[in-house]
């Protein structure tokens, strides 16, 4: 019995002293997607085998490959297309199925495991409205651009001779206009595209930034793009010596779809989740592991953005989350749908809210926006939603724009509320409440006569609707004065929509980031222990607000009628030394009273009790 115990202890000691035997090294190239996948692999190995995982950072995918060959790492995640490119195979990359790659690498001691389930191929995208305007459908159509094409891509894509940009240009015979704009971050690449700095952007099909943004991909009609099927790669020797690892990783077969991968990338690229966190969440959701891995609990402060009508934010959702993260890089940024975004900010449940400017003016019956909500401040402008008044062409009327049945946004929604304010100014009321797409449908079918739709100028939905030619965009009649302070007159420039040659006068509403105002009270820093009980969200500083505005790339300042960060410094310096005569008098009286009290208490002590 004793010997047994001794043996057990001995074995434990031996194994503890030889850590290298039980360690598997996983390579991480510096790309978001591969980093997430490397963590998926490592957590799966740790959960299912007795091996400890060591993560080895590689300079790039090629470096990872050479380290794998040199036995410095044991496992990595790679794409079939990239592997073919590195091997300078005679097979062109576009035929790069996993099967071919597996055959090609097998004799060299590499083993490609099963496919993970997605293809992370390259895409060429253009803003969807531009695709329609210019009639772009395929990559070959880019040849119709007279001065050549402006491309934004990543520097690694620019430097890949075979399957990268040089190859692409040769294949399609495209002419570049100027040097390509090299931007590493896929989100920023799309922003540059949106801002017109480039005509097309090259992205990967699984980029998280693509998730919520309406972009049109150009078809690869001449079959240049290869296949980039992701799979785990290891060495044959590892497979033979550690079959448990292969078995554990076998569970990943076809489990990560394109959609799942894009969501994981979104979490890391846009929301700022750590790759290991995203990997862990995926594994738990897919029921591949049961426990939360506890090794990486570095706490990061959370930055919550409250939205109460996610619809209205639409594609701005991604922009909102991303710009906030840019300004607060060490925060985890979360977008939360709440019942009332303003209250969420006021009560400290969110640091920022995305709201329309009207929310600063609670509209009570009979009141004409006399009160302003000063508990929140406008910090930066995300954009302006324009009022679009649409009628059928055959029933268009310049004078009586609001004749007939009128359709507005869903009942109780902010859009419906705003539309009602406009209609009140024209002495009429909405009749139908429905969603934008339903409204457009009903308008086309002549079920309603007018539709009031709030949206960004030139947005894709209205673009599509107006392109059919049956509808027309109408201006707000001159005699209708919308006296709401948050609905200033704006102009939709001519040519914004198909068939709209003249500018259209209407009203618009700013959509802003709002943060708690210092009026709520100082945060715990200056507010003391009692403030720590409830206010968890300090107001943004002027510098942070500036940085947000810059990150959005929108130079438009918040409307001066809104309480904003910029007004704060002026107001505060005036308020600092304020004190009415009454208050000063009260202070004096109280102080004098307390002095008298103290003297009296002193007397009580000194006067000996008389007996």
């Amino acid at each position, binding site marked *: 019995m004793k010997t047994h115990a001794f043996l057990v202890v001995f074995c434990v000691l031996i194994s503890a002293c030889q850590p290298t035997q039980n360690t598997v090294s996983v390579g991480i190239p510096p790309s978001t997607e591969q980093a997430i996948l490397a963590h998926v692999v490592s957590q799966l190995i740790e959960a299912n085998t007795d091996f400890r995982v060591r993560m080895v950072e590689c300079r790039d995918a090629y470096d990872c490959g050479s380290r794998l060959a040199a036995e410095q790492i044991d496992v990595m995640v790679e794409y079939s297309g990239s592997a073919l490119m590195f091997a300078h195979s005679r097979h062109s990359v576009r035929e790069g199925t996993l099967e071919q790659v597996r055959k090609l690498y097998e004799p060299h001691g590499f083993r490609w495991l099963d496919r993970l389930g997605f293809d992370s191929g390259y895409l060429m995208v253009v803003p969807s409205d531009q695709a329609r305007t210019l009639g772009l459908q395929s990559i070959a159509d880019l040849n119709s651009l007279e001065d050549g094409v402006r491309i934004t891509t990543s520097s690694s894509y620019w430097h890949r001779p075979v399957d990268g940009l040089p190859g692409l240009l040769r294949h399609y015979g495209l002419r570049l206009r100027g040097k390509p704009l090299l931007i590493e971050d896929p989100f920023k690449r799309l922003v540059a595209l949106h801002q017109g700095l480039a005509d097309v952007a090259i992205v990967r099909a699984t980029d998280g930034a693509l998730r919520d943004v309406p972009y049109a991909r150009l078809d690869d009609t001449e079959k240049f793009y290869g296949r980039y099927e992701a799979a785990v790669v290891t060495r044959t020797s590892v497979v033979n010596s550690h079959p448990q690892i292969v078995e554990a990783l076998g569970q990943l077969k076809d489990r990560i779809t394109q959609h799942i991968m894009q969501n994981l990338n979104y979490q890391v690229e846009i929301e700022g989740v750590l790759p290991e966190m995203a990997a862990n969440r995926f594994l738990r959701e897919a029921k591949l592991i049961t426990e939360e891995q506890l090794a990486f609990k570095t*706490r990061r402060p959370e930055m919550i953005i409250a939205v109460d009508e996610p619809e209205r934010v639409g594609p701005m959702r991604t922009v909102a989350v991303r710009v906030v993260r840019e300004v607060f890089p060490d925060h985890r940024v979360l977008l939360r749908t709440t019942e009332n975004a303003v209250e969420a900010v006021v009560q400290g449940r*969110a640091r920022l809210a995305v709201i329309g400017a009207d929310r600063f003016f609670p509209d009570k019956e009979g009141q004409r926006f006399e009160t302003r909500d000063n508990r929140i401040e406008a910090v930066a402008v995300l954009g302006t939603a324009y009022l679009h008044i649409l009628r059928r062409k055959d029933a268009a009327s310049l004078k009586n724009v609001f004749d007939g049945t009128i359709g507005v946004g869903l009942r109780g929604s902010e859009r419906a509320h705003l539309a009602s304010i406009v209609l009140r100014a024209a002495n009429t009321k909405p009749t139908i409440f429905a969603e934008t797409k339903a409204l457009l449908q009903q308008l086309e079918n002549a079920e309603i006569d007018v539709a009031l739709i709030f949206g960004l100028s030139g947005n894709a939905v209205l673009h599509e609707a107006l392109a059919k030619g049956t509808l027309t965009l109408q201006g707000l009649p001159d005699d209708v004065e919308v006296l709401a302070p948050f609905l200033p007159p704006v102009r939709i420039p001519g040519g914004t929509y198909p068939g709209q040659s003249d500018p259209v006068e209407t009203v618009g509403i700013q959509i802003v980031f709002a943060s708690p105002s210092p009026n709520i009270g100082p945060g715990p*820093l200056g507010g003391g222990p009692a403030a*720590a*009980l409830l206010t968890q969200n300090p107001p943004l500083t002027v510098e942070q607000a500036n940085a947000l505005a810059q990150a959005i790339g929108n130079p438009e300042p918040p409307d001066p009628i809104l309480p904003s960060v910029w007004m704060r410094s002026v107001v505060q310096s005036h308020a600092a030394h304020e004190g009415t005569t009454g208050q000063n008098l009260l202070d004096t009286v109280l102080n004098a009273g307390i002095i008298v009290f103290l003297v009296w208490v002193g007397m009580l002590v000194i006067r000996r009790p008389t007996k």
Partner: protein
Amino acid sequence: MLFAAGMGVGLLFWGVAEPLMHFSGAPGNQPGTPEAARHAMTVTLFHWSLHAWAVYCVSGLVLAYFGFRKGTPYLPGAPLRSALSGVWVKPTAWLADLLAVIAVALGVAGSIGLGVFQLQSGLHVLAGTDSQSTTLTVTILAVLMVCYMAPLMTDLDKGVKWLSNGNMIVAILVLLFVLFAGPTAFLLRTAVTAFGDYLTGVVALSFQLYPFADVGQWLENWTLTYWFWWIAWAPFVGVFIARISRGRTIREFVIGVMVVPSLFSVLWFSVFGGTGFYEELHGQGGMVKLVREDVSTALFALFDRLPFSDLLNGTALVLSFIFLVTSVVSAAFVLGMFTSQGSLNPSVGQKLAWGAVLGGLGTALTLSGNVEAIRTVAFIGAIPFTLIILLQVASFLRALLAEPDTQEKP
């Protein structure tokens, strides 16, 4: 027992957070500099050491003296009735009893709020629950109420005492663990330096009212709020201190109640605040930022960076919870005493009623979302009671002067 009743959950809540807050915001120093760190420790100790215990000491001493020497009941108004004479004494003494009840009820309700926030943050850290969920807040409050109502119903006085002493021992073990698992040498140096800075600075800080700097708001929000909190708790802690000090001389009493706990405060804040500073200045950093965003996570964030972080975080949660339960149980007991002519055995009904009132107040404060209201409410209880304490001191001195001379004159 003393510590558990007098500071309890506040120690856990502010141990890491307060020094870091002052590091980046207290007036008098450039934030983030080494001088600011030293000053932050001094200010924290100023809030948590001698002054706090002096308030408790006075309150306890007066009750104990009159209780043991004159046989008066443990009521804040009793010393007044006993030592002073005049028509005004009776109503004033009655007012004193009433104000003590208000001060304790409101003060403890504030602590319930504090504790619930800490628990919610802890659950967020440990179990990933929603840190902002109102439902969870209400659930925690409900569980808390069930847990303290039970000992109030059965006569578990002994059990509660045992629980709170045990809790304090666990807290000390956590303290020792942090001291030895953390940067021990740095922490000991911090403790010595902070102690010295505090000794030299305490007089100056006590009289510092910042007439030449525009920081009146800071002073009111931090220092004065603490003073009023200690005063609000004084009638309640005083009773507990008085009950356990029969047979002590006044000198022993003062040393036992003022000096010993103050030294413990120095050690506690040096270890927890010091570890926070170490992480901020020499470790991974980011602590100050975290504290400024959400004070209640400070302790958990620090534990994350130490070995056995889950165990520590879990322990901190349990400690907070038990501190909270024992505080409320004791407060309900004392309030029951105050409202039954100082009886040492208030009826179960009375204790339950006070338990419910405290729970209700705590819930209202937690859910109201209005900091100004909380501060005003706490002040309403404490400001008038400050005057009562002065009257108590006067009564006490009068009674002492009237004692037959038993000691040699200097």
